[in-house]
């Protein structure tokens, strides 16, 4: 059984670092497929992995090859796409990384996305965990290119704006055909406990607050030096917070 976890939130709330730490933690329990579905996130850097190509790039290349008629006849396009996606997968010991890349250009992507859904679906069932770092609009969730989700973890900073964005994502995902298990909220970068106003706002918007994380003093140094963020010390607030979530959700 594969457990799929999507992590979403507005920009700058620490979503990618939380995704990376969760991936690192889960990789001690099983094999993880990390999906970078945020074109501006660079999940690969946080994980210390190289970048070998993107699904978006494969999709564009397919569209071009179709126009040039340079694809082999008699071999299903689905199989060709699957092979090309496989070739962009970055493989490491316990974690493989799939980077979705830039969003669609103009034109029709119905067929391409349909094929992507099938290909990614076939790939993901080989993993114990799939962790998706989503951009705020959750394009790949809404297009179902990333498949069904067991846990949607929305991340916010302690601002009403961040909480409202998280609530909007919860609402968005419930309008979609994608099946979603639980939806949870995590507030990052609090100083002391979460401000009462923020807690009230989260309650008022029907968000299930699962954890709050203190501003992490160790993060800035890693960012400056360009060290993969998963190398945060184990007693860092972010590491502790991610472990807390994994425990609470029994991941």
């Amino acid at each position: 059984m594969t457990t799929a976890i999507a992590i979403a939130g507005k920009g700058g709330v620490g979503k990618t670092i939380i995704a990376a730490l969760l991936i690192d933690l889960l990789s001690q329990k099983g094999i993880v497929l990390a999906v970078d579905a945020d074109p501006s996130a660079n999940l690969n850097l946080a994980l210390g992995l190289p970048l070998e190509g993107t699904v978006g790039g494969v999709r564009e290349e397919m569209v071009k090859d179709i126009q040039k008629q340079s694809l082999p006849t008699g071999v299903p396009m689905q199989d060709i796409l699957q092979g090309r996606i496989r070739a962009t997968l970055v493989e490491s010991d316990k974690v493989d990384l799939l980077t979705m890349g830039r969003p669609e250009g103009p034109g029709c992507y119905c067929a391409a996305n349909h094929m992507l859904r099938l290909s990614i679906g076939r790939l993901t069932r080989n993993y114990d965990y799939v962790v998706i770092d989503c951009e705020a609009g959750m394009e790949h969730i809404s297009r179902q290119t990333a498949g069904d989700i067991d846990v949607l973890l929305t991340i916010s900073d302690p601002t009403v704006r961040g909480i409202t964005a998280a609530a909007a994502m919860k609402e968005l995902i419930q309008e979609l055909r994608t099946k979603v298990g639980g939806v949870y909220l995590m507030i990052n970068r609090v100083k002391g406990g979460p401000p009462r106003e923020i807690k009230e706002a989260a309650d008022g918007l029907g968000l299930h607050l699962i954890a709050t994380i203190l501003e992490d003093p160790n993060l800035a140094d890693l960012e400056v030096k360009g060290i993969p963020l998963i190398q945060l010390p184990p007693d860092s607030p972010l590491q502790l917070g991610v472990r807390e979530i994994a425990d609470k959700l029994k991941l």
Partner: protein
Amino acid sequence: MTEAFPVDIGPQYEGDVIRKADLYVEFGGPKAKSKFELVTLNSPAEVEHGRIEVIGPDIFELEEGGSYPLAILIDVAGERLEKETEPVIERRIHMYTNYIQGLYHMNQREDAWVRLSKDAYKMGLKSLRDFGKILIFLYTSELSVIERVAITFITDEKRVQELLPHALEVYHARDERLKGLREEDVDQFYGCVLCQSFAPTHACIITPERLSLCGAINWFDGRAAYQLDPEGPIFEVPKGELLDPVKGEYSGANQVIAERSLGQYNRVYLHSAFEHPHTSCGCFQSICFYIPEVDGFGVVHRDFAGKTPIGASFSTMAGNTGGGRQAEGSLGMALEYMRSPKFLRADGGLYRVMWMPKEIKERYRDVIPENLYDKIATEENATNTDELVEFVDKVGHPWLRGEVELP
């Protein structure tokens, strides 16, 4: 009878991925320079059934973790086999290899990629000969038309490279032959309703001579998608009776359109823009539109931002064309449809086309007849209908001179 093999065999292993961390060795794939797979039909006398040859180092002689060159050459013979089936039999390499526990196959032809897991190696799959034996077993037990099979594996890089050009030639020749497939050659078309979420009465009818409007699904893809997921959005369309060979009206297609358009339409002409044209979704690559002033067609594609001679841009016209309607004289289509020998056959085909963006005209130079090429206007020759009338008069467009006979 799989006891004789070191690993298990069965469709349950299909879809199992072998990750880099579990890999013993891999052949082909992005990291190996030379690789291909090729099935060749031979006379029974030329195929020594069951013969397996390995040229170059075998698995047990290779260093663990590496990527190596590989050619898989499969010779088959059978009384009822035809040259045309070679690609189908070759595609089975993909399917059968994935049936084998601990083996994993991706891609095709000169991109072939095979991975062997550490577990399978430990279980005793240490030679390509074992791989060959299983393939021969599967070929002969699954496809009764195959009477004899012999397999050669080449892992010697130089030998693979020497043989590759021949394989590429064969692939090319096959593609050319398959491109020549006609509606007359098949019994089934395929239908696609992927776009029904915003065009509820639209269904694409995909034939060997008419691909989906988005340009992404040809007849072969339709067939493959249907076989993969028979309950999915791509389905089989029995051709039925040919009611009008010129307009491309088939009873089977009519029936499907009636069902899938929820009764909105009950007839469809696959190769005409008039009366009962194909419905249009929203994501067609181009629009073929009738221009009354010249009694001909213009073709405009999605990437053309400017205005066509009739004063409307692609996006304006798309609004009037799409949504699942049959819009007479306004047809959403794949650009590649222009390569079809049946392209708007009932209306005069390419000889009825008077205008298209320069980019498209250049891209399709090889399909536009030489005596027509200079007579089709582009945005450089005509930006409104007055200029278009003047241009086609001046150059003497064959349609207007009455030189084109309708079938």
